[in-house]
């Protein structure tokens, strides 16, 4: 039993490392396709000699394969090179932004759960009726709206008109509110929809019918039996949804000038700061992989069937 669990964990870890390695390679290739960064780092009237010097300093005069080797070796030592724009180690630049992005993602996730779980349960219980349609349409409307647009409208209303909440900046709870609401809208839709359909599935199954037959009220049935059974797929989706949350953070951080990794990445891409882009891409992949690894492991601890299947 515990041996199979260990094997399962080892397999998942191996997969995660493989995914990260592939992600690192992809990030490397992506920025190599974009042309010569040296030209953009020097003024237009720089001499060929200046260009050659910089190219050498950046190691861009080596063969692509040698650069790739250096890059991987650096990765092993957690050295991702220096940002071309900031002249600092990219690990430092990224580390500075991690707290803000995590705060935003965590805030949005908590908010999503607080809204999505009641919404999903309510809709499932009123399945097919006006309440269900209303809630699900509202949720779908959120999913159908570009997140930046939601953010802009929130700023107009709460910052410019009501002057109740700051439109940008970072530091206090007040600063977190609008960005977290903006970012949560999409996840609310995904989680609420999934929870609703899993609940409907579960509520139709035999042991729930038995419970109903025993005379338990609908609320009790849902809470006591349905929710527990519907929680597994929901937890999985929350893990997968984390990637979407990070993607949404790119836009949200842009709208609210939030000092996180999303905004950093957009700027790095537009400045062609290739070491920073590589590192940012890796960060997103790593965050996703780690969260899903945790979800997966906790899941297999909770449910022996999963691990045995693996």
């Amino acid at each position: 039993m515990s041996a199979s669990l260990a094997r399962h964990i080892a397999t998942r870890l191996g997969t995660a490392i493989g995914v990260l390695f592939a992600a690192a390679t992809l990030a490397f290739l992506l920025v190599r396709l974009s042309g010569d960064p040296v030209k953009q780092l020097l003024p237009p009237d720089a001499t060929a000699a200046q260009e050659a010097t910089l190219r050498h300093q950046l190691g861009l005069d080596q063969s692509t394969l040698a650069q790739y080797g250096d890059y991987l070796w650096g990765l092993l030592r957690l050295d991702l090179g220096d940002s071309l724009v900031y002249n600092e180690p990219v690990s430092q630049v990224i580390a500075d932004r991690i707290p803000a992005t995590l705060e935003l993602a965590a805030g949005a996730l908590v908010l999503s759960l607080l809204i999505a779980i009641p919404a999903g349960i309510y809709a499932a219980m009123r399945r097919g009726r006006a309440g269900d349609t209303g809630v699900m349409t509202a949720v779908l409307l959120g999913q159908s709206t570009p997140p930046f647009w939601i953010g802009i409208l929130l700023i107009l209303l709460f910052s410019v008109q009501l002057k109740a909440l700051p439109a940008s900046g970072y530091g206090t709870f007040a600063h977190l509110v609008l960005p977290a609401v903006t970012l949560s809208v999409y996840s609310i839709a995904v989680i609420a929809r999934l929870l609703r359909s899993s609940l409907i599935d579960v509520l139709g199954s035999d042991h729930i019918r038995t419970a109903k037959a025993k005379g338990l009220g609908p609320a009790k049935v849902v809470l006591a039996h349905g929710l527990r059974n519907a929680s597994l797929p929901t937890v999985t989706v929350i893990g997968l949804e984390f990637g979407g949350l990070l993607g949404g953070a790119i836009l949200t951080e842009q709208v609210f000038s939030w000092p996180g990794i999303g905004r950093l990445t957009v700027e790095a891409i537009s400045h062609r700061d290739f070491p920073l882009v590589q590192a940012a891409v890796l960060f997103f992949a790593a965050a996703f992989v780690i969260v899903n690894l945790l979800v997966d492991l906790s899941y297999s601890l909770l449910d022996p069937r999963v691990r045995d299947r693996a």
Partner: protein
Amino acid sequence: MTRTLIRNRLALVALGVLALLLVAAAFSPLLAPDDPAKQDLLARLKPPAWSDGGSLAHPLGTDQLGRDLLSRVIYGSRVSLLVGIGAALLAGVVGAAAGLFAGFRGGWLDRVLMRFADIQLAFPSLLLALAIVGFLGSGLWNVVLVLGFTGWVSYARVVRSEVLSLRTRDYVTQARATGVTDLTIMRRHLLPNVLPPLATIATLHIAAAIVAEASLSYLGLGVPKETVTWGSMLADGQLYLGTSWWVAVFPGLALMFTSLAINITGDALRDVADPKAYRR
């Protein structure tokens, strides 16, 4: 099947909206009162006809370069649908092919393709689209390609799992035994069976791609300016919300309702294709 669809009144309304949209896209030149690119720099930011200072010449007003907003909203439907459908088709073809082969052939091919899917999933697709467009240049087809290639995974997974369950069915094993080639089996027996779930995913993907195009345009990495899109109208209009709300609000509403209608249709399709998920 049809009855289930009709029973869902909301889906009917959504289908109506989509029909309208298709008409608008197909007959834009006939419907639009004006050339969507025609500027009138001395008539910038005119309000809609019903507001003070508006006129019937521009029913929804004009934008920051004096272009007719109604015409632009109508023409914008073309690109949004093109991006959405193009991306969904591309992702569908790539994803379905990957799923068919992975599921039917199994073995190393399956492992490699599914590992690819894992890697792809580890990147937020917006990040991937952003990086690719940012480094390789923007443009309508680049956006379609990027949104297509970043969306194939969900198709592949669904098709693969369907194929895995179909593979052992009698008619498939019999066909194999009588020497029918794999390709023929996939085409004749497997593909038709995976089409319904594919259609559902594709519908939802269309809506997601339309929203993603708008997001890329907001970040300045969308389609070129001479192409009228709701996303870029929305992004341009953001600055004018304080004084000229109509520039951003009308394309915003068009985008929202289109995406909503497609999503509702997708849900309805899922109910038809997989009644278990929506037991009544």
